[in-house]
């Protein structure tokens, strides 16, 4: 068979040759596939937002902003106010973060810097396994083991010691916001730990050496170099944990008590947006009720987006402050 081109080299200069080379190397198909994937992500997010918006038109028109600020949720009288659920979601998630962040960073420091070699890999794997436990199992264990054995006694102690603080008002319930927060903390701990550990391990050796050569103790190296330089990565880990906490449904539903209680007490039952949707979607029989639940979904979606954006902004500012342009 005769080649249409006498010389391979010459063909590189011709238009068809150049196109062929470009095509053969896969630049065009690759670029197209990647662009498509990127656009798809945007389209999906926008489509979810649009659908939630479009299918919640009835309660939005009927209640307006009052949907967010009132606390009566009465499907029989067609009154829908989401405030207790919004507060419940944010309160449990933030409390879970407050508990999980120090623990997660501590474990990550141990894994990355202090643990003996033989312990690092097994412990790291165990923590990653914790993230793979299905959330319904966490819920079940929370309800039958963790609440009676840990949360209830802890609640009693807190109440008897700090009963003057509204946060620890009685009576002490088992299923409560405290229980939900603690279960959430345990569930997001592996995420925060694993990501933070990887961030710590990515610290260039030259940086820790610089600190040690100046006479830093291990603690000083960790506190003055490792953690400050890993801040943006730690924030990323926290965002991931927060995302999981905000949306976590079944485990929270099983341990929070599902009562739209507006008291400040952590020892009382609460209710979250995700739990509400899970509990009521099957019994929502009329259009306004269904759409009210969809609007709850919209609110949860927007809160998640907003918190993510705020956290991204933080990461970006911190990163800029520390690297000073060139890095």
């Amino acid at each position, binding site marked *: 068979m005769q080649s249409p081109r006498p010389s391979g080299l010459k063909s590189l200069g011709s238009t068809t040759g150049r196109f062929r080379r470009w095509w053969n190397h896969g630049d065009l198909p690759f670029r197209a596939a990647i662009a498509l994937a990127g656009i798809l992500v945007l389209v999906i997010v926008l489509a979810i937002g649009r659908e939630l918006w479009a299918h919640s038109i009835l309660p939005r028109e009927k209640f307006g902003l009052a949907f967010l600020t009132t606390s009566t949720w009465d499907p029989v009288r067609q009154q829908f106010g989401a405030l207790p659920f919004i507060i419940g979601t944010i309160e449990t998630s933030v409390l879970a973060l407050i508990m999980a962040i120090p623990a997660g960073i501590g474990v990550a420091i141990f894994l990355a810097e202090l643990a003996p070699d033989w312990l690092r890999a097994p412990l790291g794997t165990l923590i990653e396994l914790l993230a793979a436990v299905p959330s319904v199992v966490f819920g079940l264990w929370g309800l039958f083991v963790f609440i009676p054995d840990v949360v209830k006694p802890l609640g009693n102690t807190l109440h008897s010691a700090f009963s003057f603080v509204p946060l620890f008002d009685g009576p002490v319930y088992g299923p409560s916001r405290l229980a939900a927060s603690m279960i959430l903390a345990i569930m997001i701990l592996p995420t925060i730990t694993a990501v933070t550990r990887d961030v710590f391990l990515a610290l*260039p050796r030259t940086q820790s*050496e*610089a600190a040690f050569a*100046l006479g*830093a103790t291990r603690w000083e190296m960790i506190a003055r170099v490792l953690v400050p*330089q890993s801040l943006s990565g730690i924030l990323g880990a926290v965002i991931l944990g927060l995302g999981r906490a905000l949306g976590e449904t079944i485990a929270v539903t099983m341990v929070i008590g599902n009562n739209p209680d507006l008291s400040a007490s952590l020892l009382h039952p609460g209710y979250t947006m995700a739990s509400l949707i899970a509990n009521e979607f099957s019994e929502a029989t009329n259009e306004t009720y269904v759409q009210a639940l969809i609007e709850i979904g919209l609110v949860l979606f927007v809160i998640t987006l907003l918190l993510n954006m705020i956290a991204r902004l933080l990461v970006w500012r911190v990163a800029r402050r*520390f*690297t*000073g342009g060139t890095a």
Partner: protein
Amino acid sequence: MQVRGLNFYYGNVRAITDVNLDVPEHRIVAIIGPSGCGKSTLLRTLNRMSDFVRRSRMDGEVLLDGENIYGTTVDVVDVRRRVGMVFQRPNPFPKSIYENVAFGPRMLGIRNRGDLDGIVERSLRGAALWNEVCDKLKESGLALSGGQQQRLCIARAIAMEPEVILMDEPASALDPVATSKIEDLMRELRESYSIVIVTHNMQQAMRISDDTAFMNVNSQRSGHIVEVGPTKRIFTDPQQKETEDYITGRFG
């Protein structure tokens, strides 16, 4: 500072064999030799940065003011504060120029702003960097050029007022102009400190050092000092054939 009978092992491999070396005050000692002969390893035993090498051990003594820095009662943190180190690649912290220099003093518990300001200025002047950065102390150390970053690292080291400064090929990542600035600086630093420099660059050793130690690997691939003496004599009248071969470029 004196090194006496020092052996260093990675696992079962003896990387350095029986090194004896004197670092007199206010002198620059250069350690030269081919790649892999243990120059950097030797340097790192002098401030116990070698402690971080896994499965390594050493025997012998490194005396600082007559005291063995590997002695059981010695605080390694204290050793590193008295023996500063500058690395091959500039490694400033991603902090401001000021905070880079103030890093060590802050660890010593110096909080007073005036004291810190004084130390920072003195150290930056000592590292011949003050005039270039005095109006931008709040800017990131990483925004400086490579040569400036290395002088910042020197300033950071001398802020601790060490007795000895160790330099591990401090100019090998720099261009010739930046290199000559570092060399000028080293001659000034000699007034106040003892300096040990590891270098690949024999011209550099010749230009700046008072004494030179030539290291080589022996038949067991272990590093040892072949010859040590005043730089002028090592380069003009080496006593050993190996040294002569190396400095005349016949190998290495």
